[in-house]
């Protein structure tokens, strides 16, 4: 079953076409890597899929809702995390979870259990009462992720979630992503770390507003006769540069 469908999705700003007729589908529980150079159109595409920006033309469905007509339903059914933390520094760990659980409309009776569940999953049982500002950076990032999916959404959008994070935490973060995918949450993720592209079930590479490649990392490496995803990326993005930047 597909939880994201994009058909010729397009967004223009004046005479500039940021996203140019992109089409793809993402299945339930899939980890989908959305790669591209700076300025390739990734953020614009994500904003449309999250119901934050209306497409100029084309269609899109996220969690069964139309991105043009039902942006509010989409927002209630997705999670979103960017590099910048959305946590409240002056609230305790459990208070942050409590706050987001309320915002996402989790019934009052269930919130207590959900807080315990998240603390256990993260191994944060002893940090329940700690102020978020006192947590190490890597822990904040893991808590941010758990808060973004506190309502067990069908899909979570992660925009460069591991930028600048230390190597061990970066990997622990990916283990949380696997865990969420195993529970059936679809993960839509962007990254500039090409080793992380290998952890995705499928990867799309956007160049100048268009999706130029979309397949499993294994097939992409075969298609481009490349040893790793870094080489695949370089081959595609270099081509774009030669066509004029």
């Amino acid at each position, binding site marked *: 079953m597909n939880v994201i469908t994009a058909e010729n999705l397009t967004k223009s700003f004046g005479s500039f076409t940021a996203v140019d007729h992109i089409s793809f589908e993402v299945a339930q529980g899939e980890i989908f890597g959305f790669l591209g*150079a700076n300025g390739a159109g990734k953020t614009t595409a994500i904003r449309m899929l999250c119901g934050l920006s209306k497409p100029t033309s084309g269609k899109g469905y996220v969690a069964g809702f139309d991105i043009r007509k039902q942006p509010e339903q989409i927002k209630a059914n997705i999670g979103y995390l960017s590099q910048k933390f959305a946590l409240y520094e002056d609230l305790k760990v459990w208070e942050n979870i409590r706050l987001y659980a309320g915002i996402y409309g989790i019934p009052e009776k269930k919130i207590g259990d959900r807080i315990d569940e998240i603390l256990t999953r993260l191994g944060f049982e002893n940090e329940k009462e700690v102020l978020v500002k006192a947590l190490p950076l890597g822990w904040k990032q893991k808590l941010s992720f758990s808060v973004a999916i506190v309502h067990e959404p069908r899909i979570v959008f992660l925009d460069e979630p591991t930028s600048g994070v*230390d190597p061990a935490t970066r990997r622990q973060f990916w283990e949380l992503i696997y865990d969420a995918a195993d529970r059936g949450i679809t993960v839509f993720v962007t990254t500039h770390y090409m080793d992380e592209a290998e952890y995705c079930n499928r990867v799309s590479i956007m160049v100048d507003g268009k999706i130029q490649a979309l397949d499993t990392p294994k097939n992409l490496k075969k298609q481009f006769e490349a040893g790793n995803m870094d080489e695949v990326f370089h081959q595609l993005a270099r081509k774009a540069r030669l066509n004029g930047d």
Partner: protein
Amino acid sequence: MNPVTVKNISRKFGKLEALKEISFEANQGEIFGIIGPDGAGKTTLFRILTTLLLADTGEAAVDGFDIVRDYKQIRKRIGYMPGRFSLYQDLTVEENLSVFATVFETTVEKNYDLIKDIYQQIEPFKNRRAGALSGGMKQKLALCCALIHKPSVLFLDEPTTGVDPISRKDLWDMLIRLKKENITILVSTPYMDEAGLCDRIALIQEGRFLKIDTPAELTRKFDKILWAVQSNAMSKLLADLRNHEKVQTCFAFGETHHITMDDSSLTIIELQKYLSRLGHTDIEIRPIVASVEDCFMNLTAKESEK
């Protein structure tokens, strides 16, 4: 005297010890990399060495001048590209460059040779406002502005963070060219794969240098046995490897997992059998040479054991 000498620099912000007893020297014409995650203290160190922040204790000299007493001399001699975008967003590419040249009492023409290679790439956009440039082009312009007075030491604070792999490579190509001009370059980055491009690197975590060495020596001195392991079920493989009593650490590294062991009592054949019994197929195990990222993780793991 070396262009950068640092002795026991420490700095606190309230209770937080941002830098603890940092000492190192950078040689003339060297690319010295400071490698570590966000919050490790990289920016604090750069701000102290560029005379924008005072250290609590310790001393340092840049280009032979004391960072406290001779701060005015230092400011004339160095180039500094801070992590966050430092240009005037409402001025054009050309105007930004001439502002920086004027402030340093020179002209764009005088040192044009130094920036020519980089500037030519953004010259077609010289009448565009800096705020309207793409990320990669902004970085190129910022580098030109930091170089326009031909500094003797260049400080680049995370010039590649959030920049795509192609633009990152372009930027590093430029730094390697600048080295030939005998400019000493201090550069910080959270990307471990960029460490190999530096002459020497310091690994920094929680305000302390874990190690200073050449990338080649650092990886050669890796003191554990290191294997890359693959199978048909990578997620399960991670857990199964961690459950093996002789495996010390196990982390995902792109298409393989890396495992470390203290001694050689486990053989590849034994591990292969163990994994087969647990249902894995297409198993591949091979000894590998450590990367800088392996070293960093090994060193930080040791720190946390202390």
